């Protein structure tokens, strides 16, 4: 699949197979879409343009939901509340306080961001569905306020000139932007700009961090991602996009009603997101278009079928939601994308400058120290006064029978669990109370016992996720597409790490095409992206075949030779005995023994507690 450009032409560029046809089909589709959009205001009638504008404004909201639900795994059932906030703040400021309409839209966005920030503070530390429920409740609250605070919002009747609050139209150099034809340019201009920004973002460092949330918060944090902050950023972007849609709605209709913020609207946005494709940026446009056009049709057809008027389209949308989730989880656009020939992946410029190396650790004494570390769950003490240390350059094995507390100890070191008592320090820094991402940023990288790779992403993309703590680009440069040079270096580094673990044959293959043994190596490569001082391997040999274990052992030895310190939590005695310089044995949450493999092997307590059982 992969061919390397001969070394004579420097720098070395690695390209993938994939077909040029796939690339061209997508380009043609994109150009056709853009051409259609340019042509639409000239050829379409007013009602079609009106629908197109509705589609565009919905798509803005859905775009935010795609980021939030599709990439960050957080659902909001109150997105309409942000639309309503954006719309009403803009309308009230422009009408009652005479603010410039354009500025009022910005003010509406800011107001939404502030509200989203407060909701995020409360809920983003909890499980994902609490955000969904909190936003749902918040949507009901906002709607209630809009309905009842009559003096300010005009109440249920609505806010606009018909109720005595004249909203001035948006104007462009003195010309009022009225009518769907002119508004079309504004709405779709804003939408395409937003799509461009989001596409940029998802190709940037922050985008990689957002994508890494899909593998779970623990994995993301192990790359050094501040999960809390990244979730918040995503939520705020989604709220801002919704508020922008709200502001645009205000100036198109010049008359707004509280239902804009109601739960029904939030549910509609969720349907659009699921139908178009939860994790598909272009799906936002498709989902919105399908929803709006289908609703139009169903409203005409269904009453005829049922023999009575009514909003029966909700039956269809309910069933569509269920069926899409059951049988087409990825949604419309990713499904179509899967039918087209694959497009070639972005090539890797292997000659790009390497990422900055982590400064060498300068510690006197051991690299990692656990002192009397204790953790209990309810009445059960999982880890009891555990002490051991890991010296720089060593390979240390942490072993013990099932339920001995190895995994808990691992989670305490990486900050996933908090400590009840004792102290942990790493490279001279106290990490006892540190968050997982803070620990990771100090140079402590890990792999997972239960594999944590994104099956649909390529090897190189999976490995790139690990680079977070070694890169610097921020949100804003990511949004406008700067930081491309850094991304090129990340990909080159990922390619080098794949070479290092022996997976560079086809860096563009999907991760789910690899067997288990290679996936473990992939996780090691991803951990190595952080240029770690200490590498924690969580049962790396579990489920591996004999020759795969040999590959793994060879790799660990090589890494040790290259100066990486390794802490190995392992069940497999062969692997540990072969690799470890020293071994710590745990049983019932306590340290049972420690020493060289030979010492441990001959320790009678160990033989009885662990090896004895194992052989029985």
């Amino acid at each position: 699949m992969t061919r390397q450009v001969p070394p004579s032409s420097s720098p070395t560029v690695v390209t993938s197979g994939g077909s040029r046809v796939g690339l061209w089909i997508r380009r043609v589709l994109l150009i056709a879409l853009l051409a259609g959009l340019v042509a639409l205001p000239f050829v379409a009638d007013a009602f079609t343009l009106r629908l197109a504008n509705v589609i565009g404004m919905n798509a803005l909201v859905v775009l935010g939901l795609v980021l939030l639900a599709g990439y960050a795994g957080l659902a909001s059932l109150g997105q309409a509340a942000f639309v309503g906030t954006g719309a009403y703040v803009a309308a009230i400021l422009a009408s009652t306080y005479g603010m410039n309409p354009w500025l009022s839209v910005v003010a509406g966005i800011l107001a939404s961001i502030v509200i989203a920030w407060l909701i995020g503070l409360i809920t983003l530390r909890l499980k994902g569905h609490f955000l969904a429920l909190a936003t749902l409740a918040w949507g009901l609250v906002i709607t209630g306020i809009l309905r009842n605070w009559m003096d300010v919002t005009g109440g249920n009747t609505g806010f606009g000139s018909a109720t005595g609050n004249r909203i001035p139209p948006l104007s462009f150099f003195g010309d009022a932007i009225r009518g769907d034809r002119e508004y079309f340019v504004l709405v779709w201009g804003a939408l395409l700009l937003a799509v461009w920004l989001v596409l940029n973002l998802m190709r940037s460092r922050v985008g990689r961090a957002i994508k890494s949330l899909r593998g779970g918060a623990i994995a993301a944090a192990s790359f050094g991602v501040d999960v809390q902050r990244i979730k918040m950023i995503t939520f705020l972007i989604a709220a801002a996009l919704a508020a922008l849609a709200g502001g645009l709605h205000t100036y198109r209709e010049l008359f707004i009603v509280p239902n804009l913020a109601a739960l029904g609207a939030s549910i509609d946005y969720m349907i659009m997101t699921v139908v178009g494709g939860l994790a598909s940026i272009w799906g936002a446009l498709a989902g919105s278009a399908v929803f709006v056009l289908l609703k139009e049709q169903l409203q005409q057809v269904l009453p005829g079928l049922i023999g009575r008027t009514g909003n029966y389209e909700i039956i269809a949308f309910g069933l569509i939601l269920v069926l899409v989730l059951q049988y087409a989880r990825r949604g419309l656009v990713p499904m179509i994308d899967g039918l087209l020939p694959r497009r070639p992946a972005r090539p890797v410029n292997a000659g790009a400058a390497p990422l900055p190396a982590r400064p060498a650790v300068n510690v006197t004494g051991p690299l990692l120290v656990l002192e009397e570390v204790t953790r209990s769950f309810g009445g059960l003490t999982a880890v009891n006064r555990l002490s051991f240390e890991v010296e720089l350059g060593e390979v240390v094995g942490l072993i013990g029978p099932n339920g001995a507390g190895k995994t808990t100890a691992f989670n305490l070191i990486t900050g996933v669990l908090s400590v009840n008592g004792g102290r942990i320090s790493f490279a001279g820094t106290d990490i006892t109370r540190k968050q997982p991402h803070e620990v990771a940023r100090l140079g402590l990288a890990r792999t997972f016992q239960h594999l944590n790779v994104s099956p649909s992403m390529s090897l190189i993309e999976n490995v790139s996720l690990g680079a977070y703590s070694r890169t610097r680009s921020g949100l804003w440069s990511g949004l406008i597409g700067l930081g491309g040079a850094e991304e090129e270096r990340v990909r080159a580094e990922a390619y080098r790490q794949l070479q290092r673990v022996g997976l560079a044959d086809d860096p563009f293959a999907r991760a789910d095409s690899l067997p288990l043994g290679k996936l473990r190596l992939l996780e090691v490569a991803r951990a190595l992206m952080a240029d770690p001082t200490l590498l924690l391997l969580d049962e790396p040999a579990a489920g591996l075949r004999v020759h795969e274990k040999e590959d793994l052992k060879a790799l660990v030895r090589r890494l040790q030779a290259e100066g990486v310190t390794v802490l190995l939590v392992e069940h497999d005695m062969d692997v540990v005995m072969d690799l470890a310089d020293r071994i710590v044995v745990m049983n019932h949450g306590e340290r049972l023994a420690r020493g060289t493999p030979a010492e441990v092997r001959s320790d009678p307590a160990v033989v009885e507690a662990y090896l004895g059982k194992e052989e029985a």
Partner: protein
Amino acid sequence: MTRPAVYVYTKGGKWMRRTLRIGLALLLFLTPAALAQTLRIGAAAAATGAASAFGEPEANTFRMLQDQINAAGGINGIPVEIIFLDTASDTGQAVTNVNRLIQEEDVHVVICCTISANSLAIIDTVQEAGVPNISLAAAANIIEPVSERQWVFKTPQTDRLMITGIVEDMVAGGMQTLAYLAIDDAYGEGGLNELNTAIQGTDIEVVTIERYGRSDTNVTAQVLSAVTGQPDAVLIWGVVRDTALVVEELANRGYEGQVYVSHGVGNPSFLELAGEASNGVRLPIGPMIVVDELSADSEIAPVAQAYVDEYEAIYGEGTASTFGGHAWDAVKSIELAVTHAMEQGEIDWNDTEAVRTAIRDSLEAMPAFTGVGGVFDFTAEDHLGLDTRALVIVEIVDGDWTLAR
């Protein structure tokens, strides 16, 4: 070319057209000429949602009238097509539907909407497009000021008229304190606004104002709050189910003063839902509801009786309500306006805009006519044209409406 009058319930299949239009806009060209020689009325009412109790009889009436008019050979030979769209009582839906009716269906006149909030929201649309609209909602500011609402008419009595009727009834009964309980939507808001205006210059004082939700399961707190002030009268401004709930709760709490409700409950299902508790409740409403008690010289009686008979022949005994009557009045006024316009001169049915203008002008210019809800005399200054003949005070006695005043 005459298109047969097909009611929208039985038509569908426009999705091909829509899909083509959006997807291949370049390839499409329109042929509106095919739609000539039919009077197209676009109706958008709340067949479902919060106001369905009003909107459903309206939808039924549209269906009935379309069949009747066409069976009688149309209006001077012009067939009528009433294109009905459900607003689901939702403002966004109402605006979209009216836009569709005007731009897609190319209608000559719009009848929208059932409720005031929707009717207010579509004013800009019909004013900008230059299409006459007849609203079926109560609020007076739908048609006022006429200088900014040239294209908007309405047929129901205004809530101002209704509330004035209540206030007069209270004054006649020597009542002075009033508790106001209203549904927390635009209808309830409108009622309160008009109440504050109507009591000016009288001795009546509003002592309590409480709100409740449309699907609230319980209104005890609000009723207790109202009863605590021991007002002479309680006015409940809501629709069928919620009003029934409040009326029952008032009876439960032993309230003995006069209970007034809005014309929003003028629907037989209210009598059933509220049961015995509704005894003695009074409401202002169009005369149709007590058509058999109207005096012999009432010009409204025969029209209203005919409507009730026709409606109930199709939809069942005891189903006719004043809301359907508003729809009847709206369609009739259009029919008469078209007839009037045709008498004034030839109408070019291929020129939609000319037809729209002709209908609007004729509505103002044509002579007064008697409808189900009263005697209408639209003028350039008054786009409702009703007088006090359009209102009676009805008392519920033993589960039936009886004329009180």
